[in-house]
């Protein structure tokens, strides 16, 4: 039996995974993947709440916008990562140390 709480549990698990990835991984691409996990957990939440609790369109529209904007954000993020890679020849977050005091 799939209920609201199973969806919420899955999305919470996704959220925790995303945070864990961002803390544990040192690869910038992996960190971007972690951000996507978090955004998708939120989108899943919106869809699940709409399906089980209130049957209006608000949540679906939110999920759609999250998908679209996440794509835009990933595009800009990847462009910056490519630029960083061309200059430093590394995508390791520990190499981004020029601005530390």
């Amino acid at each position: 039996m799939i209920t609201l709480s199973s969806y919420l549990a899955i999305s919470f698990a996704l959220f925790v995974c995303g945070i864990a990835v961002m803390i544990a991984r040192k690869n910038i691409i992996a960190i971007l993947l972690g951000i996507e996990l978090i955004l998708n957990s939120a989108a899943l939440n919106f869809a699940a709440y709409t399906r089980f609790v209130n049957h209006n369109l608000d949540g679906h529209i939110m999920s759609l916008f999250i998908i679209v904007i996440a794509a835009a954000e990933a595009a800009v993020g990847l462009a910056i990562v490519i630029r960083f890679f061309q200059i430093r020849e590394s995508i390791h977050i520990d190499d981004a140390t020029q601005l530390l005091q």
Partner: protein
Amino acid sequence: MALNYLASISRYVPELLSVVIMVGLIFIEACYDREEKKKPFFYLAAFFGLTFVFVNLAADLSKPATMIFTGSMTIDPFSTLSKMLMVLGTMGAIYLSKESKDIYDNLKSEFAIMAVGVMIGGMILASANNLLMVYIGIETLSILSYALASFKKNEERSSEAGLKYSLYGGISSGIMLFGMSHIFGVFGSIQFADIIAGLNGLSTAQLAVLLPSFIMFFAGIGYKIACVPFHMWAPDVYEGSPLPVTTFFSIVPKVAGLAILLRVTMTFFGQEGALQVTWVGALSVISALTMTVGNVSAIGQRSVKRMLAYSSISHAGMMMMGVVVINELGTRSILFYAITYLFMTLVAFYVTSFVADKYGNDHFERFSGLIKRYPLMAIMMTVVMFSLAGMPPLSGFVAKFNILGALLSEKHYMLALIAVLNSVVSLYYYMKIIRLMVLKDVESMEPIIGFGVMNQSIILVLTVPVLALGLFWSGIMRLTEGASIFLGP
């Protein structure tokens, strides 16, 4: 229905005009030759267009507050006034980018285009009235800002700044969305109006879900204001970005973030109860920490740009104290603070930028003996520094005084005390630059190209409000009088 949308659009002209300006600027830029350095029509169009938007907004001030597009946006005097501030800040940053050497010549027009885009995001955010508009506004603001931060694309520091900005930004907007999704789950609607209606009669279980969700929601807004737990990106990004971009970042996203923070606070936490107590408690701690961390970190800096970045964090903390008050007095004092802060920041960054262009860096020693070579500029910088520190009779003093008055009216004595102590601390690093300018000897007598007649007079014009608002502030206060948050008919 169609008529309804037409009525909405008639109140939405400034934003639409800004979009037209952005598209128009892209076309004008495309018409110029690649090699052509000076693009007179481009800047003419940019300044003319933005002035037109400003005039349009000013005409909107006297109209009654209303909700447009089926309640998803609010047009009230408060949002209009903060939009006017953003337009002024954008114009200031675009002029600086035109003059500054910190931005590559072939990218100058792109800066203006993207700055207008960020401004549109800020305008959406300032009048957002549902969760979706908040998200769209923050992302429009952020995504273009990431590109702006990594504007010097061949320089390591700049692309690192962009990288850090986009990673932190992605994380905080993800956390904000997760919080939003649970707020939506509890209230069943993304409209602020429906959420206010649902605020009465919440069960304990619902409150237990809501409190952490609101804290998560705050992460996204707090990241834009750069308040304390989410401020780690700010000094790095401000230092790595080119100076005009730093100027822009310390004005437009901050004003937009404060506007939405104020709206969210007044909307959701206007009624007394457990929610309000928690929110006010959290905000008081955060604003006090933001001020203190900003000020204490600013003390040890060698670079003036980094010092100004930290000081802008502490000013954001000061403005957040006006949010804690949750009444109209607080709203008005924040608007006044933002007006004065805009002019002070612009002058400080203009002078720093022209000095830094000459020497290639912006260390404090570069200001040595400025008064002997450019007395007018040194005096302007001194006025602005005194005003930033909050010395009477300058406008910075009146702004701080208003915030303190609002705090005391709601009996937040501890916060007021912290604010006063912080002003004393900030005096130290602002005075450091004045001491160098006045007492030290000149390093070299070579002229600074940036200080031409035109630029000097613009700096002079921008300093006049800093002086004038300190003496004749009642006029501006009257302007902010009607600018309370519109919660619904």
